């Protein structure tokens, strides 16, 4: 009886992994939103994956079912159809919602401290430890 337990255990692990895998592939784009031109649609999907859903917890608008996420997905597709470049679409969105709307915020003067503070602390820590060891030796 006991020898079946590892098999069961492995099956459970596989099931959980598959669920996780499927959830990673999930997206919220509805059929009526999809553009006929596959190149345009691919561009829209790629942009949507980088745009934060403002009313969700760490989700992109590509994955979110929130009404605002849907509105933004439609807007991105309209902008692509109008002939806007990707950079222009990102600029349109950041002009209105700030860098917060980007899931990967760019490095700029406003968030410089957030990017570099951990390194400054690391250097300070190494310095203190090094100095302390040198002194005790």
């Amino acid at each position, binding site marked *: 009886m006991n020898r079946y337990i590892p098999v069961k255990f492995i099956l459970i692990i596989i099931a959980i992994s598959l669920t996780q895998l499927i959830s990673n592939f999930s997206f919220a784009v509805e059929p009526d939103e999809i553009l006929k031109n596959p190149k345009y649609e691919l561009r829209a999907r790629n942009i949507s994956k980088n745009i934060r859903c403002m009313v969700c917890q760490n989700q992109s608008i590509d994955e979110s079912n929130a009404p*605002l996420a849907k509105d933004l997905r439609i807007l991105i597709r309209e902008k692509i159809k109008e002939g806007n470049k990707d950079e222009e679409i990102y600029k349109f969105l950041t002009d*209105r*919602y*700030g860098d917060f709307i980007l899931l990967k915020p760019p490095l700029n003067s406003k968030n410089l401290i957030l990017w570099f503070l951990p390194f400054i602390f690391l250097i300070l820590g190494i310095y*203190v430890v090094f100095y302390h060891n040198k002194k005790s030796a």
Partner: protein
Amino acid sequence: MKKKILILPSLFFFLVLSIFFYLLIIERNPSEIQSNLINKKIPIFEAESLFKNEKFISSNEFKNEITLVNFFATWCRPCRDEHIYIKRFANEKDLKVIGINYKDNPKKTIKWLKDLGNPYKDILIDKNGKIAIDWGVYGIPETFIINSNGIIKYRHVGPITNKIYKKINLIIKKNE
């Protein structure tokens, strides 16, 4: 000298710690995202008006007077709660109040305003939420204060409470 060098990192660490502590104790809502449109010109847009036959063209409005722009909907419960303050702004202050009716049914809006009173000088219809996106709106109700030069000076996300009402009054006074 060596001791001094060793003290410096600790001082720096406590300085950063104090900044974090200060940010914790001051009155602020960390979940509220600051508008990127503060101190910028109002977005250019056109919209249908709920009561007027002519189109609302933003570049022709927001001139020579302070304007309060309020995004609302009849299906939004907090909008009903804050309506009393919108009415107070319209009645007590020398400012233009414009409502933007977000994804709503015009018939329901007219009835809603009949029941609760209409403080708005003009009500614009944002049928599909595009005007809201232009203003960087992410949840209604949202309220904006625009100065007489058409510059956005303040944005509040959520219903106006007594405290926010007082805060907006101060901002209006500052911009008069």
